[in-house]
């Protein structure tokens, strides 16, 4: 068990103009599960490999339990890692794969090794597979063997590099819960890399969002979702993603392409008058006006929307409302969409409506927007101008 501190870590590859990792600072407490998340190429795997000792650290300091480990090799750092492709040894049985870390460390009796492997196999329900070769296992079983190999060492911390990305969707959800349960039970400090924001939100004690080698925000999942530090985090976290809509500030509120919204003064404190900003609205903060009760209705605004398409999902209903955005803001939004690897170039509003709603595609409907939950972003810096105001809420 250990704490891991990243202190302004920098990774610069020879010949690359930009550093791959640019001054990342993060403290992972003992027993905590921290997720590194971001789109591909954001440097999250590089950070993990720097912690592991598989990549040199160009600048900055890495401390495990307060002790500088920059110069130590992976072996001396005593961390266990699960690789994205599991990296099982194909010539060894499952038993020997799990026993490998014990065998190479020497000074353990055969009986002790057998006992430890047995314990881990029981924990991961691998007992019947111990004699098999990795090539005879399914993806989920290989994943469990890889976990077993990490657990058996009783390492100071786990490093998981996209451990679930090679599994199909159903199995991934299962293993996600399994990993969460395991981590809670063993209480081992864990750094977990993923590009999947659902994994990040469900698993992490805290989540660190990376973009182009820089840390954007480190927070508990809930704070990340409700108070994103900037446009990038807002767009990245949440599915379907937050609606980012051009907004012009005016007296007591903002003007959106489809509605004029009165905002509480606290939200507008940092918004310069008449500025053109980007408003962030979560899909679930839009609702079928017919289903919103009186008191809540007064806190928001009701507007007419041309609902293009609806998707009924059983527990909710998604409604898509196209709108026209002014050119300059639209360019900024497109840039962001590209960076988030989003395909949606159409400017549209996504509303998550109650499943009971009678709104159907191809009609004009009355939607209600919860003004209290709206966020405002500076389109140039991306900074969230409402974050301080909502901090106490």
């Amino acid at each position, binding site marked *: 068990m250990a704490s891991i501190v990243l202190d302004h870590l920098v990774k610069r590859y020879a010949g690359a103009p930009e550093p791959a990792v640019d001054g990342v600072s993060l403290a992972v407490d003992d027993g905590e599960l921290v997720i590194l998340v971001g789109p591909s190429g954001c440097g999250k795997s590089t950070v993990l490999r720097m912690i*592991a000792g*598989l990549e040199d650290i160009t600048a900055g300091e890495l401390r495990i339990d307060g002790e500088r480990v920059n110069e130590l*090799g*992976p*072996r001396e750092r*005593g*961390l*266990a*890692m699960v*690789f994205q*492709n*599991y*990296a*099982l*040894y*194909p*010539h060894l049985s499952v038993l020997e794969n799990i026993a*490998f*870390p014990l*065998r*190479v*460390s020497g000074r353990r009796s055969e009986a002790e090794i057998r006992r430890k492997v047995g314990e881990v196999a029981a924990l991961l329900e691998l007992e019947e597979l111990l004699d098999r*070769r*990795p*090539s*005879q*296992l399914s*993806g989920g079983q*290989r994943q469990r063997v890889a976990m077993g*190999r990490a657990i058996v*060492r009783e390492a100071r911390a786990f490093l998981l590099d996209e451990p679930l990305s*090679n599994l199909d969707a159903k199995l991934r959800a299962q293993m996600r819960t399994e990993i969460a349960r395991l981590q809670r039970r063993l209480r081992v400090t864990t750094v977990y890399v993923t590009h999947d924001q659902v994994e990040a939100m469900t698993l992490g004690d805290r989540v660190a969002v990376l973009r182009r080698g820089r840390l954007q925000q480190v927070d508990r999942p809930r704070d990340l979702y409700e108070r994103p530090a900037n446009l990038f985090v807002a767009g990245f976290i949440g599915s379907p993603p937050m609606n980012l809509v051009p907004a012009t500030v005016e007296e007591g509120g903002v003007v959106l392409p489809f509605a004029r919204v009165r905002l509480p003064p606290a939200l507008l404190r940092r918004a310069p008058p008449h500025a053109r900003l980007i408003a962030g609205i979560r899909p679930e903060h839009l609702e079928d006006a017919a289903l919103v009760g009186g008191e809540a209705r007064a806190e928001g605004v009701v507007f007419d929307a041309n609902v293009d398409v609806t998707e009924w999902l059983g527990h909710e209903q998604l409604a898509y409302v196209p709108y026209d955005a002014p050119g300059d803001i639209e360019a900024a939004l497109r840039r962001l969409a590209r960076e988030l690897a989003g395909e949606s170039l159409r400017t549209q509003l996504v509303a998550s409506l109650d499943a009971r709603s009678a709104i159907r595609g191809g009609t004009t409907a009355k939607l209600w927007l919860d003004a209290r939950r709206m966020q405002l972003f500076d389109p140039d810096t991306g900074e969230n101008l409402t974050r301080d105001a909502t901090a106490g809420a």
Partner: protein
Amino acid sequence: MKGRGRGAVRMLGAIAIVAWALLPVAWIVSLSLKAGDDIQNRRFLPTVWTLDNYRTVFRTPLFTSALRNSVGVSLIATAISIVLATFAAYAIARLELRGKRLVLGFALAVATFPVVSIVGPLFDLWRRVGLYDTWAGLVLPYLSFTLPLSIWVLTAFFRQLPWELEQAAVMDGATRWQAFRKVMVPLAAPGVFTAAILTFLFAWNDFVFGISLTSTDRARNVPAALAFFTGSSQYQHPAGAIAAAAVVVTVPVVVLVVVFQRRIVAGLTSGAVKG
């Protein structure tokens, strides 16, 4: 039904090809089992089955010394070639190295060099430096032809090895040596065996160097010695003895291939990584 018909045709084709390829071998085996003048019996099988030719062959010093030379020279050439080629291929496949392509290109150029064209100059050179009619005098030219081949085979093999397993082993607490010894070597073994067999076969089957660079029992190898063969007496046709000797030198090759075939083919790397 259709599938079975096609399978039968394929089977027949395979049998025809195998028979075509094995006929000369069967003939030599049959010849080696015919005694004395039975060779002229104008039939495929011996009239009387006998192992006389084999006894003769193993009693002839020409053959026994040649066998010793062949085994010794081939094993030494294979050992040196594999050790050097493994290091070279590891460096080419794994390390950031300037001039990798040059080494590979050069190796290929050497490998395509016609053997016959260097035999004459080597003959002169070896006589002057005292390598003529020695084991070393054969091992050196063998190396120059088997090294490029082994380097190519091993480089191709090493390139497709899952090297991230080395990192996995290091993360599991292994030293670099342990990672190499316990993970990479077992995975690389099939490739190394393949290269070793190819090298051994080249040295074992060589005739041109053997006949040109040797003159006595000191270094002459079996293929060359066969050319000097006479029967148990000089009045006897030596075909039976030559056939027996040929069978004796073919057996190790067949055994080698049959024994290691499974190691070579074994899909040892499957299942290491996904897909």
